[in-house]
């Protein structure tokens, strides 16, 4: 998604350095999520508590990802894992964590992501997109609809078959 592939390889960074950059980037990302809620009209204390809890979960997940270097597992896996464990019923404090996270809503949480993604497109991507042409745009649309419909049809059949 970025032009980073073109930048020359620098010396390997230590997990601590990586984590430091993760914490900074996450602050900016969370600030954008906060802003997005504010313009939607959500600004109570619940929002700030929710953001703080989510930030802590994200950083904890990043820390696991940096210090348990299993190459095939993306950062996303570790952050999902932490989020799942701390909200699991029966885990001490899980209901409080869940309530805190409920201070955020879906829509304003996803909007900043799209803004970053749109700004993050470089000249290389724009050129590639133009060159890919209408053919590949149509194919891509079919690909995305195909996976959604394929999964929905199978899931629907199995649900109906189980009679639930």
């Amino acid at each position: 998604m970025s032009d980073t592939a073109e930048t020359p390889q620098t010396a390997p960074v230590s997990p601590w350095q990586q984590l430091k950059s993760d914490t900074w980037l996450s602050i900016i990302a969370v600030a954008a999520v906060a802003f997005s809620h504010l313009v939607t009209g959500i600004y109570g204390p619940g929002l700030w508590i929710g953001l703080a809890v989510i930030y802590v979960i994200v950083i904890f997940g990043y820390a696991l990802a940096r210090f348990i270097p299993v190459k095939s597992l993306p950062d996303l896996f570790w952050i999902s894992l932490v989020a799942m464990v701390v909200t699991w019923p029966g885990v001490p404090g899980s209901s409080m964590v869940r309530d805190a996270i409920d201070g955020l809503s879906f829509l304003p949480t996803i909007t900043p992501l799209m803004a970053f993604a749109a700004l993050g497109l470089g000249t290389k991507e724009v050129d590639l997109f133009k060159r890919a042409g209408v053919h590949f745009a149509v194919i891509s649309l079919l690909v995305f609809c195909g996976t959604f419909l394929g999964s929905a049809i199978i899931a629907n059949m199995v649900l109906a078959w189980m009679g639930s």
Partner: protein
Amino acid sequence: MTKTPVWIILVTVCAAICAGQWIGIQRFQIGIANIVLLPLVFAFLAGLLLNPAVVSPLKKWMGPGAGQRAARLVAPAVMPLIVVLTANIGSELDALIEAGPALLAQEFGNLGTMLLAMPAAVLGFKMGREAIGATFSIAREGGLAFIFDKYGANTPEATGVTAVYICGTFFGTATFAIVPPLVASLDLFDTRALAMACGTGSASMTGACATALTAEVPEQGDLIAALAAGSNLMTGLTGLFITIFITIPLAEAYFKVLTRVRGKASEASDV
């Protein structure tokens, strides 16, 4: 060359967010299908209009390397969404277990990508082996790496997967924000089935899809989030195995059949 200061990125992103939230949710009807356009679609369009790589006069204000700095923020911006989605899995566990067989089976629905798209690529657009790379998956980072590893970087398969990857970057998430509510409005599917279908292995697509469905069926929001996040995790865990042992062999066979059909059709038309 000084780098773009991070506050300029943040201000620009906030402007795009404002545009998105200000336009809000737009709904209209075409026949029996509902089209729902979420703020995230408008924020993306606004972001494109503010992107110096798209609108070059903006380069003066943004400075060089703005795109690169913004791109580094995409992954951290996905994470809060992932936390919000997965936070529902534990409390909705009973519903997830109840839907377990469906949840497992629908992983094979990802084969729908090539079922639907490869005939269009081979028969419609007369593509060669690009069609395999282009249609075997939704071509996110993992798929890209897999094709480059298996077929090599300078192959038609790699061209195909790269093209769909790029297209996905431009309108993949938007597609997953628009198509699910449209399908839901047809009233043919169990909402749970649609929620499971949201789990694609791409966090932003899954998030957009779950968000769009929740906007339509707000009372089932927690369940939708849990099923989508569960299905997404499952795709992450099983995806590679399904790709290696099922998808790629099937794609190769399907491609052979389709090119043979195309060959026969052109023979027939030559006579």
